[in-house]
């Protein structure tokens, strides 16, 4: 593969992300939210892709790290003067300290990564459906603890008063960071070892790849990116509940990845942008866009039907699970 092809594989998805970011500055404030949602979806789906795409092991658990990242960044950036009032039951160390925007993003990535490492240590021995269900169990436990344990967060109430620092710039840079980290990882020696094990685990082991260790590494990187994406999300919304980072987000982001093409970074970016773009269009169409005026409530029906149709007609996703390439560029 030439250097140019490698540049295109990162450059084109990155350029697409930047284009969406620039596009968001040309639309009204009411529509900007759709562009920011799309960019944050890219960050989350790329995070999931780092593990699921490279390892070939299905995980329903990555959104737990999004949730943990979102609540870590949210709780730690609420201004001190209001924190004791809204979250009186927090552990003192969480209650009496507040950090800035950038530190909170790094903190969320660290918390997501550490948690993913600890969870992955035993779980990465599993594969197939058992791995899928075990990671789903992680999501359930994370959700349950975040929802009920008021010493670490708001519990079942809404976490609000989080500074809304994720604008066009932060969302674009965030999505770019996720994309670049994913690209750097999959091109590294370690990433290639994991991709080899995805194609044939026995053969990979035969040439000395420790499948468990490589999966654990990808799971940790994915967890850190997911935590980071969660921080972007909470700083976009300003307030969040545990339900927003639970089942629906898990299914939607996994669907984005599979619709785009599960085994390529290009697929993750395209899937996230295509599905969130379609979703935004349908939201607007329910209120009437030009000649299109859909009845209220038809959005989810169409979204489900279109996603199912894409998967039936093109099971390997829009991109076919391949990286971006131009004819003649090899």
């Amino acid at each position, binding site marked *: 593969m030439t250097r140019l092809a490698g540049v295109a594989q990162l450059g084109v998805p990155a350029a697409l992300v930047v284009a969406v970011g620039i596009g968001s500055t040309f639309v009204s404030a009411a529509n900007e939210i759709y562009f920011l949602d799309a960019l944050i979806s890219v960050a989350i789906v790329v995070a999931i892709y780092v593990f699921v795409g490279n390892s070939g092991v*299905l995980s329903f658990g990555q959104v737990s790290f999004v949730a943990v990242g979102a609540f870590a960044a949210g709780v730690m950036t609420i201004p001190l003067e209001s924190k004791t009032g809204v979250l009186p039951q927090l552990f003192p160390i969480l209650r009496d300290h507040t950090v800035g925007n950038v530190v909170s993003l790094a903190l969320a990535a660290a918390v997501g990564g550490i948690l993913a490492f600890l969870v992955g240590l*035993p*779980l*990465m*021995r*599993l*594969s*197939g*459906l*058992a791995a*899928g*269900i*075990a990671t*789903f*169990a*992680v999501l*359930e*436990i994370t*959700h*349950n*603890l975040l929802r*009920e344990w008021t010493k670490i967060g708001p519990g079942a109430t809404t976490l609000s008063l989080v500074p809304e620092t994720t604008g066009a710039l932060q969302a674009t840079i965030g999505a770019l960071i996720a994309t670049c980290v994913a690209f750097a990882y999959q091109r590294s020696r370690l990433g290639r070892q994991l991709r080899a094990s995805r194609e044939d*685990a026995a053969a990979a082991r035969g040439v000395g790849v420790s*499948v*468990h260790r490589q*999966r654990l590494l990808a799971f940790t990187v994915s967890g850190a990116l997911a935590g980071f994406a969660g921080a972007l999300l909470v700083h976009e919304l300003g307030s969040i509940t545990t339900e927003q980072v639970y*089942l629906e987000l898990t*299914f939607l982001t*996994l*669907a984005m990845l*599979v*619709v785009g093409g*599960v085994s390529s970074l290009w697929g993750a970016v395209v899937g996230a942008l295509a599905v969130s773009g379609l979703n935004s269009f349908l939201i607007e169409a329910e209120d009437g866009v030009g000649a299109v005026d859909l*009845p209220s*409530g*038809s*959005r*989810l*029906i169409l*979204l*489900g*039907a279109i*996603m*199912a149709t894409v*998967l*039936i007609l093109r*099971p*390997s996703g829009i991109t076919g699970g391949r990286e971006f390439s131009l004819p003649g560029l090899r």
Partner: protein
Amino acid sequence: MSVLAALDAQTVVDAVGLGAVYALMAVGIGLVFGVLRLVNFAYGQLIMAGAYTIAFTSTWPVPASIAACFVVVVALSMLMDRVVFRPLRGQSPAVMLVTTFAIAFMLQAIALMIDIRDDTIGEIATSIASFNQATTVAGVDVRKITIAAVIVAAVTLGLLALLLGRTTIGLHMRAAATDFGTARLLGVRANRVIGFAVFLSGLLAATVAVILTVQFPFVGPDFALRETIVVLVGVVVGGIDRLWTATLGGFAIGFATGIINGVLPTDKSVFLPSAVFALVILVLLLRPAGLFAWGRAAAAERV
């Protein structure tokens, strides 16, 4: 047994009732998985459709209402097979599973659209709620529907055992579940076997719809969603490769949930999901091929 003996009889009875319903759902999911290798996430929406049918026909005589439920659920199940499962045959498990997510989303959205016409979300199935009354047997409150659920589950599983073990179509289904490619080479007709499995799984979904609607007469678009997720987990924990281990898995997770709920102190009962799913992870780590899968298969799938 000492742990069980320490529990009060009420907890055990409730746990068995829950386990029986989950076992029925597990059979429905396991049957389709056996012939199609497809984890049908939209199974809960079949049950939801049945529950809505009962709620919307509340003014009808109860047998007619239940019959309508069976017709709607079985028809929807067959339609799902024809439109969605058939084109997906042979695809990777991830693609099939995610497609059924999309279908589940779509069916929920359709249900919401139909439901919201009266400007409220949720319908109440009034006609069959009376079966939910409790009778007291030896100091233990047993709801009639719990007894019915246990009997229905036992009878259904017995009939299914006869069907699979003693009839030609049952033999074909078992052959297909073991090795679909070879079974087809030996003359098993794929569409017939799959169609029959989907039909049976639709019948089971309708049965569960009736039982659940009696227990929870308030029907919303997310009816049975939670139960389906838990049963899917139970089926994999039990061992999805065989129908009996899948069924036992479904029963086990229902039973375990009931028992843990009875054992947890009241102020800790909000952490019930954490306790159940921690147990799930533990079992998966110790027996990745399934809690009830014995022999060589149990050692497979380890990295």
